[in-house]
């Protein structure tokens, strides 16, 4: 997994609430057996007309935002399906940070497994950032994970919270399977205990 340390880039304002993962990446693109190549289909039905042409007014089709690295959106971002294709599509497009008042749980977890930083701020703060992002081709939204700060183009600083473990893994690009496998002895001890206390739970040898 790529590390996330700091990021300076364009932020695309997406003024919608309850953006579900079907909307982020519709089901016809879930038939892939790879993680890559989904960026082209990110927000497919919002971004393209049925004939395949671009929807001019959609934010990611507008020049300053075509190369956005940050998305600022309404509350409950990423609700619905557990598809990890949603963060894969965002990343493949080049987006590595989402700022919203709240996120759905599974999407939020999935972000951290892929080096994508979801930042939760208050409704009021997000509205300020949306307005700032509306200004267009500014290159100066800055995200600093270690300091837990977003700096907007006007220099205003917004501090955000993040779980220490998630921050640690993201900041260092850690593979948490490797970390867990380092606890093989603890897992084995748990399995032994389960075999004794709740043997009915065990399937197989």
């Amino acid at each position, binding site marked *: 997994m790529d590390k996330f340390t700091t990021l300076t880039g364009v932020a695309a304002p997406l003024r919608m609430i309850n953006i579900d993962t079907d909307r982020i990446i519709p089901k016809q693109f879930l038939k892939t057996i790879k993680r890559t190549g989904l960026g082209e289909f990110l927000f497919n*039905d919002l971004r393209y007309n049925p004939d395949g042409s671009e929807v001019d007014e959609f934010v990611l089709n507008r020049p300053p935002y075509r190369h956005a690295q940050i998305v600022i959106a309404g509350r409950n971002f990423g609700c619905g399906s557990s*598809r990890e294709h949603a963060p894969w599509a965002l990343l493949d497009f080049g987006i590595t940070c989402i700022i919203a008042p709240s996120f759905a*749980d599974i999407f939020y977890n999935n972000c951290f497994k892929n080096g994508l930083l979801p930042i939760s701020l208050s409704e009021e703060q997000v509205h300020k950032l949306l307005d700032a992002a509306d200004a267009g081709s500014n290159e100066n939204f800055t995200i600093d994970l270690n300091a837990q700060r977003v700096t907007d183009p006007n220099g205003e600083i917004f501090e955000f919270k993040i779980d220490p473990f998630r921050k640690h893994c993201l900041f260092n690009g850690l593979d948490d*399977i490797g970390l867990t496998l380092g606890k093989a002895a*603890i897992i084995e001890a748990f399995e032994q205990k389960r075999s004794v206390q*709740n043997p*009915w*739970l065990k399937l197989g040898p």
Partner: protein
Amino acid sequence: MNAPRTLFDKIWDDHVVHDQNDGTCLIYIDRHLVHEVTSPQAFEGLRLSGREVHRPEETLAVADHNVPTSNRAAGIIEETSRVQVETLERNVTEFGVPYLPLDDLRQGIVHIIGPELGFTLPGATIVCGDSHTSTHGACGALAFGIGTSEVEHVLATQTLIQKRPQNMRITVDGECRPGVTAKDIILSIIAQIGTAGATGHVIEYAGSAITSLSMEGRMTVCNMSIEAGARAGLIAPDAVTFEYLEGRQMVPKGGAWEQALANWRTLPSDEGAVYDREVSLSASELVPHVTWGTSPQDALPVTSEVPDPAGEVDVERRASIERSLAYMDLAPGTPLVKVPIDRVFIGSCTNGRIEDLREVAAVALGRRVAQGVGAMIVPGSGLVKEEAEEEGLDKIFIEAGFEWREPGCSMCLAMNADRLEPGERCASTSNRNFEGRQGRGGRTHLMSPAMAAAAAVTGHITDVRALL
């Protein structure tokens, strides 16, 4: 004396492998369901890092999302779908994971077959790379959906790193009137608390209206917990649960069954257990519900009218309602029962079980699908299909003009050939009415199986109580 604990607390505490003191716990996973859409990249990850599946025996794989629901003998015609199913078959062979192939009678939707085979047990932790894993909570299992990276983590370690969710209890007391079902209960709950109303929480459903539900009804309720944002849904195991499970294929037998029962009886929440949030509603006042918009929270009693966004004070919510109504092509003030229907979809992990099909048959018997309406019934599994046919339900359906299909996820998410055409309006027993969910430009109205059957025979959204 220990502090009183909730059902969730007990299962969670029983599965903590390691408290990592950083806000997360390593928890043990007893059962892992795998399907073709969210697993290929996980198996690929194992292969690239030279890892094995830690507990293949506690993993069960099945193809459901992409599978054809007609003419199975022809195989999967669409190439990308076929490749995905073939990839699953190759992976389960390579990694030694038990698999139910397409021609196995037990094949079906992951969340139907788990309880049906007794793979799902009370007090167990269950995960699957699918958000509707919450379904299994109806058996008193802590069950939740995960992403593909987490699927890989569970395959490799049989554990997950999780932040402990909070406890929420939703109490539904009273008796449902005829025509009001589990689907109406859960739709009205989501309408009340909102699509993010339970984010970060595990919902325990309680109250007389919940305990009087069959296991099928309980599964419908728990299934849609995710549509309220919940991490999981749970219902305390009781005599109904035990009777449902006893004798099923993978359930412990003999002395092990007795031992399991003794454990399961200790699971219900203790008197005085504290919940972070409590919500209650009365079942006796409930009316059949139907959705009008593009979020499961957009549900109203069928006796209502399409809402007017002008009445909404929250600016973002108003914009969202306006967008939904434009997408759904509905005018504010239109009575819901005046909305015409082109298609009917009966099935999915929400409502693809035998009891759902019986409710449909009760409405369909002696009636005909309305002129111009295409109605399909997709059983949740091969076993559900077999049981329905033994009861003669298939004959009632076919006689009434419904299509009777092979098991799978089908038009709930339209990954296979079953989908809406742009502009088509569907009465659906599935769980999501998102824009494009059942096909780009398709319009979905969520409702119970009985309500969907009523819409099928009348050609418009109908209060099923008039047909009972």
